[in-house]
């Protein structure tokens, strides 16, 4: 995961500057370094989930309690949150999701493709603002922009980190 060190560190800095205090995640290879940075940092509470939908509810609670949070997941997890997005939609909870994409650029695993291709459409259908970072150099500024839209604009926002930006890796390693 040496390739992802730089963007992960930059995004970690953006999350700290945005005063994010709760980070929920389902373990994911693309987010491996960012998850580790959050775990090693005492001022962020990190919550591993059994399913991504738990993260939507958790972060709603974080906001009710006066804290900001972020949800880290892979594109395959987006399918698990669709119904739960009704809650931040109806309650106008701010929501920041950072999604590492599969099923698009040079995907070798056919099982990743259906959800990967449906991510943007389904998120938009539930009222989520979708920002895409197609290149590595755009990831941290896209997350920064998304955090303002979420926490100051009071909206549900997802950053999709393109599979191209993550690099064509052998994910089996």
């Amino acid at each position: 995961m040496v390739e992802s060190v730089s963007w992960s560190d930059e995004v970690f800095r953006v999350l700290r500057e945005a005063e994010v205090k709760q980070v929920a995640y389902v373990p994911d290879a693309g987010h491996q370094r960012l998850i580790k940075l959050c775990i090693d940092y005492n001022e962020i509470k990190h919550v591993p989930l059994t399913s991504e939908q738990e993260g939507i509810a958790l972060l709603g609670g974080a906001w009710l309690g006066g804290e900001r949070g972020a949800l880290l997941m892979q594109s395959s997890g987006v399918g698990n949150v669709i119904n739960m997005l009704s809650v931040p939609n109806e309650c106008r909870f701010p929501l920041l999701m950072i999604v590492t994409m599969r099923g698009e650029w040079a995907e070798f695993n056919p099982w990743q493709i259906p959800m990967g291709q449906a991510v943007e459409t389904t998120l938009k259908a539930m009222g989520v603002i979708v920002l895409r970072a197609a290149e590595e150099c755009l990831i941290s500024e896209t997350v920064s922009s998304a955090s303002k839209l979420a926490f100051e604009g009071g909206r549900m926002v997802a950053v999709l980190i393109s599979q191209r930006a993550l690099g064509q890796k052998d994910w089996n390693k």
Partner: protein
Amino acid sequence: MTAFGVALAQPERRVVVITGDGELLAGIGSLATVGVERPRNLSIIVLDNQVYGATGGQLTHTAAGVDLVGIARASGIVNSVLIRDQKGLERALPEVYEKPGPYLAVVKVSPQSAPRVDVPKDGTFTARRFRSAINQEIKDYG
């Protein structure tokens, strides 16, 4: 899970969530997630009527014997109790606030519907009312 987020954000307060058997069964993995973090200030009360009351009274899994207290204990929520009658409820109520969390009480209740109470349906209103009630200093989205 929403109450868990509140409990993490407000560690000095006891957070109590009241839910139902159908709702908990639909998000049963959340017990395992709570069992990992084990927040000391979270109490979960499950009103278990063993039916889906809103949809015509179809049986939930607890009617067939699925044991929510057992699942909670096995998930690491050690202080989990089953309450079957009024006496048990009176004994357990102080524990909701005094026992170290995470605490879970499954309260077996009648499947009969209580009289309907009109509550505001507007999520933005109820969420902001709750948020400003427990965070006096918060005035905006911040």
